């Protein structure tokens, strides 16, 4: 069997103050999985996403992403690692208003030293893949919510990451647009993209192949990777 995309062992993350934290989480995510992390507010979902996304470091425990131990990397190393191996999708989209849809997606490759022409070419291909080939020159403000999130998804995919992490990707969308995004994520997973979603949304969670339920910073239930994965 191939190397896991994510391997956490006894990960503890304590925050000063009342912010959600992790109290010993062990987890493996295999390539090609489509999984949801669910749980009530304060259960540690977002912290887990930040730890897996190398945006935050554990207080103790082992974090291996794509086979690499990221816990002792320098800022430069970990930033480069993030740009090459990880993609992020956020509830608020975080598109930059001053740039076109194409430029926003191309920004996903900005910190990899790739020339602008190649970035735009790859961004165009990726936007076509998510069904926004006709919106390249538009500004984010001119798009519907669903289109904005698809733009953000294209940005997370453009660098061909080992893992896409999505934090409440349907949280700011109506149900129709949300359903479109769910379909897109499933579709991308069929192409081989490993996707982990953090969500409250039952519909979204139900659509994922595997569900990890967090409570009070611990994994309470894990439906496990499907045998087929």
């Amino acid at each position: 069997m191939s190397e896991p995309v994510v391997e956490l062992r006894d990960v503890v993350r304590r925050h000063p103050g009342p912010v959600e934290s992790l109290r010993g989480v062990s987890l493996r995510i295999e390539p090609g999985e489509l999984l949801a992390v669910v749980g009530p507010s304060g259960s540690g979902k977002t912290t887990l996403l930040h730890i897996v996304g190398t945006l935050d470091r554990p207080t103790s425990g082992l974090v291996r992403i794509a086979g690499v131990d990221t816990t002792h990397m320098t800022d430069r190393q970990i930033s480069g690692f993030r740009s090459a191996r990880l993609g992020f999708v956020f509830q608020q989209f975080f598109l930059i208003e001053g740039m076109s849809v194409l430029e926003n997606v191309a920004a996903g490759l900005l910190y990899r030293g790739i020339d602008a022409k190649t970035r735009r070419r790859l961004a165009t291909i990726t936007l076509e893949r998510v069904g926004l080939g006709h919106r390249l020159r538009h500004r984010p403000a001119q798009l519907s919510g669903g289109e904005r999130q698809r733009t953000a998804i294209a940005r997370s995919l453009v660098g061909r990451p080992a893992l896409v992490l999505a934090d409440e990707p349907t949280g700011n969308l109506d149900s129709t647009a949300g359903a479109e995004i769910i379909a897109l994520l499933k579709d991308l997973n069929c192409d081989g993209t490993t996707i982990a979603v953090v969500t409250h949304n039952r519909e979204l969670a139900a659509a994922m192949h595997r569900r990890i339920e967090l409570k009070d910073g611990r994994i309470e239930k894990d439906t496990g990777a499907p045998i087929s994965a």
Partner: protein
Amino acid sequence: MRPSARDASRLRASDLAALASLGIRMRRLRAALSALGICIGIAAIVGVLGITQSSESDLVAQIDRLGTNLLTVQNGRGFNGGEGTLPLTAPAMIGHMPGVEHVSATALLSPPVYRTDQVPAFKTGGIGVRAADNSLLAALDGSVLHGTYLNSATGQYPAAVLGFGAAQYLGIDRLDTPARVWIAGRWFVVIGILNRVALAPEIDQSVLVGWPEAESQLGFDGYPTRIYIRAATDQVVAVDNLLAATASPESPEQVAVSRPSDALAARIAVVSSSTTLVLGLGAIALLVGGVGIANVMFVSVLERRSEIGLRRALGATRGHIAVQFLAESLLLSILGGAVGVTGGLVAAAAYATLQGWSILVPPLAIWTALGATLFIGAAAGLYPALRAARLSPTEALRSA
């Protein structure tokens, strides 16, 4: 799999320019206002230095044109606006000095001069009558505006030549029709009007009559009161040193020797010192401008927390974030500086043109101004940039 060189986070220099201008493009009015202080400061500095330099170079050109080799000799004990007398022999003695190229003696006479015999006696307008010899124009490097100067013939007749200012005061600006002036109870025909003599303003305010005519008709005793000497350029100092003793061997201490070009040189110093004040004000404007930019950068960092978080998620290092905001601050400041330099140049050029000066802006002023904007941009952006860089990705993403 180990982290490889392939994974290093890299930002191309060509992309940095676009990044730096992003914030400015998104908020143009704010950017323009924040750069205004720098713009005004730089415009003031470049403009003032340009105007000063143009005016100085104009004065220098004037001095060059007029020459620094004109010397005047007077009796140092002049009184009540009158001039004391010099020995009769002084012009001839000075003429024999080595290094003296031209000597011209003049004498200020007491009778007033009037446009006509109807003018009340007190209305002299500060115009004096001066006996002058034939070599005055050669010594002063002066020229005639209208008519002719005195010569050996006209000097013996009631003929007068007007200084530029005297002609203006007397209302005689052309000689198409015969003009006369009323001096000491008799008419003098005006045969010429002189151009302005910058180094001898007293000549401008004088009506000149021939030496022999003055002696015979105006009761002139023949004693000169002011002698103009044009010395060889390389011997001015030597001539200067010996003039007093030569002019009046018996009482050289009564002789005052002056060099009229010194007065022009003194004006240069005055112009230079008055710019210091304006330059100081410009520097204050720059400081305020820098504070303005720092302020705007702080606000920008606060507003763009989520963008910072996003960029960190996309793989930007702390350094990349710092460089982006620092570059934005530098760009703001440079834009303000560039507009300021242009504005200053235009102002200096307009003023110089208005004054009829040749336009001259010291390149050093422009380079200093641009250097100052770079420094201000860096200083104003440094702390906000470091604040942006220190922001942790999770904190930045949580804020939205």
